[in-house]
């Protein structure tokens, strides 16, 4: 049904989106918690920085990444000379571009979930002998779970659809950085590529729908486990 090239693009998309989501998860939880719970001077700056990729034209973050992490870039040259690591024009760079673009979508629901937790539940745990880390792991984190799941799904879906920043930072190299959206774009630009573009477009819609439905089901179950929904409802 799919040609080897299309399958490669599909596999790359899955790999890059998974790594980007994995990268965003711990950082998103930490940032979401910090934004929800701490009042500090730097808060506005962090908030703006996190949200910026969402409102900028996607090429801009990609271009900034290239300036910083390209082989002649500020950090890129150092990484290359000291560790032999190249990020630009590799799948690792595509992961980074996806992660930067999807990060705001991870942070937002996580932050909201943390903000909605009644602080007195954490205080109750504290007065029952739980240290701060224990309170976080046994009370705060499980109660924020629906928000974290929502963030994961949004993050993963956004990464699957990443186009502009990826194009600017790592290009469209078959087998390395050419994910499904880039492949679709490529196919629409070559004669006779329509059929492949259509197949991949339909596949994208199917995947996105499946992800949203799965997220919805997981979320319902999580809410029930947390007692937000009565059992009688199912």
């Amino acid at each position, binding site marked *: 049904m799919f040609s080897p090239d299309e399958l490669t693009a599909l596999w790359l998309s899955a790999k890059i989106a998974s790594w980007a989501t994995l990268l965003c998860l711990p950082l998103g939880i930490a940032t979401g918690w910090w934004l929800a719970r701490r009042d500090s001077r730097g808060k506005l700056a962090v908030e703006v920085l996190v949200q910026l990729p969402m409102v900028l034209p996607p090429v801009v973050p990609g271009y900034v990444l290239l300036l910083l992490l390209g082989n002649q870039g500020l950090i890129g040259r150092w990484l290359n000379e000291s560790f032999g690591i190249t990020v630009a024009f590799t799948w690792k760079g595509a992961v980074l571009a996806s992660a930067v673009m999807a990060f705001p979508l991870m942070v937002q629901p996580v932050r909201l979930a943390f903000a909605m937790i*009644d602080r*007195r*539940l954490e*205080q*109750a*745990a*504290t*007065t*029952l*002998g*739980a*240290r*701060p880390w224990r309170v976080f792991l*046994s*009370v705060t984190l*499980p*109660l924020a779970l629906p928000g974290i799941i929502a963030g994961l799904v949004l993050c993963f879906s956004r990464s699957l659809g990443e186009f502009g920043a990826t194009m600017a930072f790592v290009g469209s190299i078959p087998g390395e950085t050419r994910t499904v959206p880039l492949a679709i774009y490529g196919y629409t630009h070559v004669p006779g590529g329509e059929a492949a573009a259509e197949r991949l477009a339909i596949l994208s819609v199917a995947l996105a729908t499946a992800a949203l439905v799965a997220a919805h089901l997981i979320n319902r179950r999580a809410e029930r*486990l*947390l*007692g*937000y929904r*009565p*059992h009688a409802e199912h």
Partner: protein
Amino acid sequence: MLSIDLEFQRGTFRLQAQADFGTGVTGICGPSGSGKSTLLALLAGLLKPRAGAIRFDGETLCDAGRFVPPWQRHFGLVFQDGQLFPHMNVRDNLLYGYRRLEPAQRRFELQPVLDLLEIGPLEARRPSQLSGGERQRVALGRALLYSPRLLLLDEPLSSLDERLKQQILPFLRRMKEETRLPMLYVTHATAEVEYLADQVMRMEGGKLSA
């Protein structure tokens, strides 16, 4: 037993409290906004006083150079609306503090507490499936099972209607008589204090007086 000399300020509100509390149940009465809950939060270690000291059985919990964090004070705190963990069933709620104790520190076991508060049949339920009165009894049980050195009760009945209050008061009395646990009972309802307390103090405008 417990002796305090505290000063605390938040905005324009100022709290001053100097007192020695005996064993048994001490009632602290006062209108809402008088600083009763703040006082309990200071004792539990959830707030830091601006100045002053808290001593319990010869141990300094808080003074100019020392602040014992709440998780090491070993005081139980029961909130107005229970604050049961919504993602755990009743049993796991009850055992939350208990599991954090060394076996030698455990003065109460699950079964007697279930019997005392008549919550045995609720063990497998989630907090969302409990009535207000049941929830509050579970909250009492959870604090008890942590075998606290002192039990702080912050208006534990105020969210319940009159009928439920009358149902739970005997449980509190039974708790007092069977456990001999020292308690500080904060409320704006003098009737509760008359029924339970061995001594009564008043709190008004941030000032505690005998």
